C-alpha cells in the first residue's frame, strides 16, 4: 500500500510506479456534504502542482480540486459520473478522481504526511 500525502486544500495523493491516484480527503468530503457532481479532468490534460485539476459540487457548495502533483491525466474515475456519492462513502479509496503520470516525485516534499495532515486539521 502506497503512502498517502495531503495538500492544505484537502486533496490526497498516493503514488505507485510513477502513477499518482488523486482524490479529496475524508475531512473534505464530510465538510462538503452530499456530493452531487464531480467535474472530472479531461484525459491527457497536463497540470502543474496546485493548479486546478477538477471541480466538485455538493448540496452546499462548489469547489475546485487542485493537483497535488504535476503530471498528465491518464485515467479518470468514470464511476463518479453516475454515482458521485462514492466520494462521500469512500473518499480516500474508491472515491479517487484521476490518475496522474507523475512529472516530478520530489514534489511530494511539498505535501503533508497523514500525521502532519491530522495535526493540520486540528489547527483549522
Amino acid at each position, binding site marked *: 500500500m502506497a503512502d498517502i500525502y495531503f495538500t492544505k486544500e484537502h486533496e490526497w495523493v498516493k503514488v505507485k510506479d510513477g502513477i499518482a491516484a488523486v482524490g479529496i480527503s475524508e475531512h473534505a468530503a464530510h465538510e462538503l456534504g452530499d456530493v*452531487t*457532481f464531480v467535474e472530472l479532468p479531461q484525459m491527457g490534460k497536463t497540470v502543474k502542482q496546485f493548479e486546478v485539476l477538477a471541480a466538485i459540487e*455538493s448540496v452546499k457548495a462548489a469547489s475546485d480540486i487542485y493537483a497535488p502533483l504535476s503530471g498528465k491525466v491518464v485515467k479518470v474515475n468514470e464511476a463518479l459520473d453516475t454515482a458521485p456519492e462514492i466520494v462521500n462513502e469512500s473518499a480516500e479509496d474508491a472515491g479517487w478522481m484521476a490518475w496522474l503520470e507523475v512529472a516530478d516525485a520530489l514534489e511530494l516534499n511539498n505535501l503533508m504526511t497523514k500525521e502532519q495532515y491530522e495535526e493540520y486539521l486540528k489547527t483549522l
Partner: protein
Amino acid sequence: MNDSHYCPHTPEEIAEMLSVIGVSSVEELFAPIPSELRAKTFNLPPGLSEFETYARMQAIVADNNAQPTPFIGGGSYDHVIPAVVDHLSGRAEFYTAYTPYQPECSQGTLQALFEYQTAICRLTGLDVSNASLYDGGTACAESAMMALRVTGRNKILVDGCVSPFSRQVLKTYLYNLDVDIIEITPLDGQLNRSELTRLLDDTVAGVLVQNPNFFGSIDDFTALAEQIHAVGALLIASVYPISLGMLKSPGEMGVDIAVGDGQSLGNPLSFGGPSFGFIAAKKTLIRNMPGRIVGETVDKQGRRGFVLTLQAREQHIKRHKATSNICSNQGLCALRGLIFLSTIGRQGLADLARLNRDKAEYAKAQLAAVPGVTVLSGAPTFNEFTVFLPKPAEDVVAQLLKRGIAAGLPLGSYYEGAGQAMVVTVTEKRSKKEIDQLAKALEEVLSCN
C-alpha cells in the same frame, strides 16, 4: 422637499433620521460632496395634483394614438395577445413576484417557470431550458459563452445574417474576454457557406446563425450541424418562436443550443421592451447553462414539488467561476410567453405561423408588382422579406410614414451598400386592405419625384 404629495417621509421622520446619524440638516448630510459636483437644480416643475397628473399623462399618451400601420419587425413583432395573457399575468401572485431568492417558498412561481421550460423545450425540440434570460441579444451572448466553456476554445463564428442588434450585444458582452468573434459577410441575404467552410476548424468553439435570418430568409442547417460537429464545435441558432409553428425545429436540425427573443409570445411591443430571452440546449450541456433552472421533485411525503436545481453553476455559489453573472430571469415576461403558448396550443401555433406566412406571401406578390421594386429571392421566407427600391429606403420609409404606414426597416444602417433595401414584416394582424394600401402608397411615393 417636503411639500410634494409624493414624498414618502414627513418632516418629523426626516428630522428623526438626521438626529440618529448625527447631522443637523439634509444639506449637511450632502456637504462632503464638492459643490461643483452637486446639481444646482433639477429643473423640475412644481408638483401636480392627482387629476392634473392624470390629464397631463393622457395628453402625452394621445400622441401614441397616431400609431402608423406597422410593417416593421426586425426582432420585435406586432402579434395578437389574447386577453387571458393580461388577465392571468396581472394577478398579484405573479405580478409582484421577483426571481425566487428563497425559491422553495414560491411553489407557484416555480411551477410556472417549470412549465415555461417545458414549453420552450417542446418549441425548440431540445432537452433542457433555463427559466429565461433578459432578451434575444443577451441570449445569443450567453450561448456563445456556453460554447467557449464547453469546448475550451476561444473563437466564435457569427453569420452576418444574424440580427445586427444581437451581434452588437454579443460583442459588448464578450468585449473583455479573450475571444475572437469573426463575422461572415452575407451572400445574397444568406449564410456564405463556402466562407464558413474556409473558416471552420478545430479552433472554433461555436457557430451562431439565425433562422429566419435578418433578411427574412429561411435555411435548413441540418448538414451544417454535421459539418460543425465534425470539428468539435457547437451550432447555435437564434430562432423566431412563432416561425417554429411551421419550420423545422432547432432540435430536428441538430442544433446544440437554441436561443431567441420571446417578445412575440404574448408580450407587447412597448417601444422595445421589456421582453425575455430563451435558451435551450442538448442535455449534455446542462451544467454549462447560464441562469436559473427549475426542477421537479417530491417532498418528504412524496408530494410533487419544484426546486431551483443545479444552483452550483450559479454566481451565489460558484462566484467568479459561475457559468454566468445572471442570477435572475425575466419571470413575468416568460410567464406571459407560457400563457400565450398554453392558450393557442400546438395546432394554434401552427395555424398562426401559416397565417403569417400566407399574408407575407400575399404582400410579397403585391410589392413585387410595384414598378421598380424587386423582392430578394433565392430562399423561402416566413413573415419577413427584403425588397430593393429604386430610391434610398430611408427616404421612402419617411414619406410613407407621413401617410400613416411604417413600411419597413431600411437596411442601410446595418449593411454596407444596402441603402436601397428594406425588410418588410407582415404578421397575422395585417389585413388584406392594409397590405393593399401599403402597395398602393409605395407605388405613389416611388412614382413622384
